[in-house]
């Protein structure tokens, strides 16, 4: 067992974890942050994407013990309050960027840093940015529309 301390969405946590505990399971089961979804556990689907020191990564391909001393962000940290969504979330809502919502957390966490780096992305750049996230419902078109709308809102 290993003692780890880390911050998630700005809040500090200290926990004792087994080496083999995946970061995705740690977030969901130890911290109760079940907004991060788990689809495949081998890096293919992108549902588990979170920010690790600001960079999007697969939380299913990292062990919780490796997050010791690091700063994470999950979808729970995006909205300012219960009543005020992040502009990207709002755009997904307005443009029908989700149906079942299983892929949404991973896609949002992929796109937040993307939009910071590319405030005015082309359609191709958007499609490239979400190429590592599978969505079985939307056909992606409404997701692309939502990202364009979010870029407008965030200007």
């Amino acid at each position, binding site marked *: 067992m290993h003692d780890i301390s880390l911050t998630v969405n700005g809040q500090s946590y200290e926990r004792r974890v087994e080496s083999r505990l995946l970061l995705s399971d740690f977030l969901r089961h130890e911290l109760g942050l079940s907004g991060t979804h788990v689809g495949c556990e081998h890096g293919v689907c992108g549902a588990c994407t979170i920010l690790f020191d600001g960079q999007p*990564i697969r939380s299913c391909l990292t062990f919780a013990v*490796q997050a010791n001393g690091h700063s994470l962000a999950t979808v729970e940290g995006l909205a300012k309050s219960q009543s005020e969504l992040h502009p990207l979330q709002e755009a997904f809502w307005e443009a029908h960027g989700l149906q079942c919502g299983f892929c949404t957390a991973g896609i949002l966490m992929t796109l937040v840093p993307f939009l910071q780096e590319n405030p005015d992305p082309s359609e191709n750049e958007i499609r490239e940015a979400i*190429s590592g996230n599978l969505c079985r419902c939307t056909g992606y078109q409404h997701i692309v529309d939502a990202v364009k709308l979010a870029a407008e809102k965030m200007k």
Partner: protein
Amino acid sequence: MKPAPFDYAAPASLEAALALKAKHGDDAKFLAGGQSLIPAMNFRLVQAHLLVDLNGLADLDYVRRADDGRLRLGAMVRQRRLERDSAIAGHSPLIHETMPFVAHPQIRNRGTLGGCLAHADPAAELPVIAVALGARFKTQSTRGERWIAAEDFFRGMFNTDLTPEEMLVEVELPRLPPRTGTAFVEFARRRGDYALLGVAAVVTLDEKGVCQQARLVYLNAGDGPVNAKEAAGILRGEKPSAAVIEAASAKAAQAEIAPLGNVHASPEYQRHLARVLGRRVLRQAFDRAGSQGK
């Protein structure tokens, strides 16, 4: 699926990491980006007694240009940095051009140069690029260090020349001669998937536009990077006409590669791809070499 239990160590120095590996040998595994190792552990294809995490070794994450024009890359350089670092792009544009084909941005944020090479997947891009560029690898163990040419490093499917106590610590890229052009192309079913087939070319022209040196290296065309030497022989000493390029890529596709086929592509289809992509990559590399001479 979840990995079987294992012990975990995060050594603070290279020496400590090497000492652990010397003590535990094959029972211990280095954990670099974890982007191949952790999926394999999740599937229980791999079980390790001890993982030696290299992510705390910041001194293995460097990009240095030596005075003689060679570029030295630490094993823990992330794939995302390989994609974006301007010093790497300036020295070896082939790396910059190829990296977007490797997995997805989220995976490249964790995956490392050393991890990808040590993993030695025949469908991976970086081993092919390393062979095409004539890279050398430095390994280290408690017993000392040694250098291996990229070509001699890969020993078949997921197999390398590394001994159980060795770590891959550095990749050295030579400076390419003037009038050298490089290119990479691959064909994959979806963006970020492992390719059905891919090929890198590195060609050098003399002042008269005659090919002096050529390397054509294929991925997913055998049990490791396939260096098509006979095809290179066809190009050497010739002006790169359409006929010569066709002859070289046909030679590689028919006689030099040994594609294994998979659910998405029969070996015959892979040979077809090798011929078409070989032609394309050579044309592009020769064009680039030619435009440098002017």
